[in-house]
């Protein structure tokens, strides 16, 4: 019984903690989707898709 009551009694704390976690979760989801899109683009193009990092100039 106690085990069930603890999280309910502290729901406010858990909710506020989740608010801190939310930006990380949103970001990871967005970046995951973006990463999948980038992978698809890479498969669509053949070979070199960008400038070499060391030689790239603004």
């Amino acid at each position, binding site marked *: 019984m106690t085990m069930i009551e603890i999280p309910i009694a*502290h729901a406010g704390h858990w909710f506020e*903690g989740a*608010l801190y976690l939310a*930006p990380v979760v949103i*970001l990871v989801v967005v970046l995951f989707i973006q990463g999948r899109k980038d992978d698809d683009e890479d498969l669509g193009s053949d070979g070199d*898709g960008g400038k070499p990092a*060391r030689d790239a*100039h603004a």
Partner: protein
Amino acid sequence: MRRLRIAAIGAALASAAVAVLPDPALAHGLVGRQDLPIPRWLFAWAAAVVLVVSFVALAVLWPRPRLETARETRMFSVPALLEPICGLIGIAAFGFIVYAGYAGTQTATANIEPTVIYVIFWVGIPFASAVFGDVFAAFNPWRALARGIGWIAVRVSRGRLPEPMKYPAWLGRWPAAFGILAFAWVELVYINRDDPTILATLALLYAAAQLIGMSVYGVQTWTHRADAFAVYFNLFSKLAPLHWRDRTLYRRIPLAGAPRLDPMPGTVALLCTMIGTTSFDGFSQGQLWTGTNGIAPNLQQRFINLGFSGETALEITFTIGLVLMVCFIAAIYRAGIAGMGSIGGQHDQGELARAFAHSLIPIAFAYVVAHYFSLLAYQGQAMASLVSDPLGNGSDFLGTASSTIDYSVITATGIWYVQVAALVLGHAAGLTLAHDRALVVYRRVRDATRSQYWMLAVMVGFTSLGLWILSASAQ
């Protein structure tokens, strides 16, 4: 340091008979009530937005490595005589602090030793190092002592001293990592952390261990790899715009020293230990850990049920928390590295972890500022009275023995803004260092940017964690 907080847990359980005195002056929590215009969690969201904007700006405006190739400008040199003088000052200061621990009052707040160790040494020197460079290297007492002994030994033996042993490459910075973890254990877990006599004995044991290590492997090699405090302070000095080398001062752009970090074995472990121990310091003040139904009281009760005393059970509980927090920080970093490893073909994860280790230095410093700024601002003032009466025996050498701490020097709200600014700037700096290194590691700009998606997630994760810990400990 946090005797009051831990004692509160023991009292709540009525089982840990922790015979300690409350010590509000040494506690480094916030003083007073914060008056914030928005909820604290919204700061985490704002910080995440700032980091995402920084990431986009780096991707667009920073297409080639700059920090990796940054140059230093020579400013001036100092006379060779200054080196032994600074060493002697360091030895004298160390000797006096140890003497105060044994000869002074055993009341922690009235003896200069605990405040010097936990506030000036542990917190003040990282601040100084990040601005003025590796100042500790000049005053390192055990290094100065070893060099002095070596200088005499060479003359007595007429140059017939054996060469130091070769330092094992696999050992790298592991001794420093364990040293920092051990110090953090004393500060955050050990029941007698404020006892001046015990602190003095531990200081002597640490110095003896350093002297043995230096005599076996050589002063420079041991100092740069295994002397926990020398390595710890040196890491922060890599962020500084000033750099001392061979008695010459150079200036450089801030952060430019970090890419020159030699990522030898144990470096990632050391940085994760630095961040993890500071995180645990904050976390262990929050309700989730110390609350009536928190993790610590429940875990402590389990160990008491196994037959341990209240004090031992509390120390075991806090040791588990400390180690798990370090592992948690390492896991976040390794998760980011695992993601990066999937980009741009053949990159070994261990190699990537070492290549990007230096990006953790500004984060470690941000955590130090965020967690200990208030301690330095408040308890640092206690030095005014302690230097006048260092042993706590009623003397008043400088006429300042009766001075007190002015808690109005900065408000609780002001401290919160400093903490948020430190975390955001520290993680933005980490992101910049990681982006700069990615441009070297990855063949294409596109891959470099994509690899940093993962580092961005790591940085936002660390920022949110830091703000959540600070917020929880302030409640």
